[in-house]
C-alpha cells in the first residue's frame, strides 16, 4: 500500500528564502505523526503544500492526489485546522454547522453537536463574540465531526487553557483516532504530544533531520550522563550533542554502541523533547 503522504525533493522558495529545501518524507496510514521544528523551520510551509494551499517544486502525493491541483477532491478525505481562530468573525455557530453539513459529504452533524454540547457555546453566537479558546473549540468540533482519512492540525491547542488542552488530546486519541485514520500534527509544545505520537519528523531550515517512529528512537538514539572523568573517552565515540546538567554532561549518540557507552554511565533513550533540543541546537559538539 502506498504511503498516505509521499514527498520527494519537496521544495518551496519565497524569493531568495528557501522555506523547504528538498525535503523527503513519507507518512504511513494509521499513524500519529508529529512534525516538529523551531519557528521558521518550514513546518507551516510543508503543511500548506500537503493541503494544497501553496505551490511547490518537487513531487508530492497526498492520498494519491496532487494537492494543489486536486485540493477539492483531497478535502473529501482530508481535513485540517491550519491555524487557530480562523473562523470568520461574522459567522454564527449554527450557520457554520449548517454550512459544513451542506457541503461536506463526510460531515456528521450529530457528532459535531455532541462535541459542542460539552462546551456550552450557544448556536446563535457569532465568532466575534467568542474567546480565542472558544473559537478553537468550535473549529475542532467542526473538524473532528468529519470522517476523514487524514487530519492535519497546526498548533491545534494554541490559546486553550490546560484543561481544554488535555481534554482535546484525550478526545483525539480515545474518540477520534482509529486504524483508518492518520493524524499529522505540528506543535512546539513537544512534551504535550510526546505520549500520543507514533512517529516524529524533525524539520530544521527546510530539511527533514529526523524521520523516525517512536519505537525506532530507542534503537537509533541514546543519551548517556557522563561524569567528568569519562568525558574525553566518551567524546571519542562522537556524540552529536552534549548538554551540561547538574555537574554531569549528557552526551547524545546516533546509532549508538550501547555496550561501549555503558562504560561511561547509565544509558537511556532520550525523550522526544530532549532529542529535539539535541538535534536542533546547532550540530555536533
Amino acid at each position, binding site marked *: 500500500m502506498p504511503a498516505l503522504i509521499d514527498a520527494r525533493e519537496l521544495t518551496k522558495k519565497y524569493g531568495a528564502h528557501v522555506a523547504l529545501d528538498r525535503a523527503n518524507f513519507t507518512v504511513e496510514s494509521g499513524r500519529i505523526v508529529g512534525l516538529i521544528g523551531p519557528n521558521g523551520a518550514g513546518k507551516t510551509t510543508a503543511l*500548506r503544500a500537503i*493541503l*494544497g*494551499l*501553496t*505551490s511547490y517544486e518537487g513531487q508530492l502525493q497526498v492520498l494519491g492526489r496532487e494537492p*494543489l491541483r486536486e*485540493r*477539492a*477532491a*483531497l*478535502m*473529501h478525505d482530508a*481535513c*485540517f*485546522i*491550519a*491555524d487557530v481562530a*480562523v*473562523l*470568520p*468573525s*461574522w*459567522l*454564527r455557530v449554527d*450557520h457554520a454547522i*449548517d*454550512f*459544513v453539513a*451542506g*457541503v*461536506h*459529504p463526510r460531515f456528521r452533524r450529530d457528532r459535531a453537536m455532541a462535541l459542542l454540547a460539552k462546551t456550552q457555546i450557544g448556536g446563535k453566537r457569532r465568532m466575534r463574540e467568542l474567546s480565542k479558546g472558544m473559537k478553537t473549540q468550535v*473549529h475542532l468540533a467542526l*473538524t473532528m465531526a468529519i470522517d476523514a482519512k487524514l487530519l492535519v492540525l497546526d498548533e491545534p491547542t494554541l490559546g486553550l487553557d490546560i484543561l481544554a488542552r488535555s481534554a482535546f488530546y484525550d478526545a483525539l486519541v480515545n474518540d477520534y483516532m482509529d486504524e483508518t485514520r492518520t493524524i499529522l500534527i505540528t506543535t512546539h509544545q513537544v512534551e504535550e504530544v510526546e505520549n500520543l505520537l507514533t512517529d516524529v519528523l524533525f524539520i530544521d531550515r527546510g530539511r527533514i533531520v529526523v524521520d523516525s517512529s517512536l519505537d525506532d528512537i530507542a534503537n537509533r538514539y541514546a543519551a548517556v550522563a557522563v561524569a567528568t572523568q569519562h568525558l574525553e573517552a566518551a567524546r571519542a565515540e562522537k556524540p552529536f550533542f552534549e548538554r551540561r546538567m547538574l555537574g554531569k554532561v549528557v552526551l547524545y549518540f546516533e546509532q549508538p554502541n550501547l555496550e561501549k557507552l555503558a562504560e561511561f554511565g547509565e544509558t537511556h533513550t532520550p525523550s522526544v523533547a530532549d532529542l529535539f533540543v539535541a538535534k536542533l541546537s546547532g550540530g555536533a559538539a
Partner: protein
Amino acid sequence: MNTAKWLVRREFWENRAIWLIPTVFGGLLVLASLFGGYQVLGVADLATVRTVVQAGALDGMMLIATAFFSVMSIYSTWYLLDCLYADRRDRSILFWKSMPISDTATVLCKLGVALIVVPAVYFVLADLTTLMMAFVISVRASAYVGSTLWRGELWLQIQALWLYTIVTAAVWYLPVAGWLLLVSAWAKRAVILWSILPLLALAVAERVFLGTHVIWRLQDARLWGYLAHAFQYPPGSANWVTTVIGHDAITTPVDLWRFFNPAGFFASPQTWIGAAVGAALIFGAIQLRMRRAEI
C-alpha cells in the same frame, strides 16, 4: 448544485448589506412618498394633470429602477473587490479551503452573486418599493392620479427592463467584474487603489510614450458604453409623446419595448470580445485563488 446553494447562502450571511442597503433605500423612498409634500403643476386643469401623470408614470418607474440599479452597481463593484480579499485578510480562507469546494466553484459563485443574485435582490426590492409608492401616491393624490399607475402593461415593461438589463449588463460588464476579481484575489492591501491605478498608469503611459489614447478609449467605452449597446433610441413622434403644459413640454417614451436592442447587443463584436476578456480575467483570478492562501 447543493454546494452552490450553500456558497450563496454564505455570501448572504457575510454580506447582509446585499439586502439591507436596498431595503433601507426603498424604505426611504416609501417614506418620502408618504410624508413628502406634493405640488400640483402650475395649471389646475384636472384633465391636463391627468395627461401628465399618465405620460410620466413610466418615466417615474424607470427613475426608481435606475436609482436602484445605480446603487446596486456601486455595491456590486465593492463586493467584487472585497470578496476574494476579505477572507485572505482575516485568514478565514484557511477554513473555507478546508472544505471540499474547488476554487473555481468559489470564484464563479461570487461572480454569480455579484452579477445575478445581487441585481435580482435589488429587482425584487425595487418592485416592492414601486408598488408601495404607487399605492401611497394613488391614495394621497387620488383626485389627480386615479388608477393611472395600475396598468398591467406598465408594470410588465418595468419587469422586462429589469430582466433585460440584468442579463445584458452581466455580459457587458464581465471584463470589469473579471478585473475586480483578479485584483481582489491578488492584492495584499489597498484593493481600491490597485483596481484603478494600473489601468490609469497604462493609459497615461500610452499617452506619454505613444501619444495615442487607445487604452483610455477602450476603458471609457467599456464603462460607459453599455447603454448605447443594449438600448436604442429611435427618433420620431411614433416613439415619443410630447405633452404640453402651459409653456413647458414633457417628452416621454411611448413604451419601453422599442428601446430594447437585444439583436444589436448580442450581435455586436464588442459584447463578445469583452466577454472573452472577462473570461480570461476570471480564469486568472481562479489561478491566483488556488495559489494564494492568506496575506
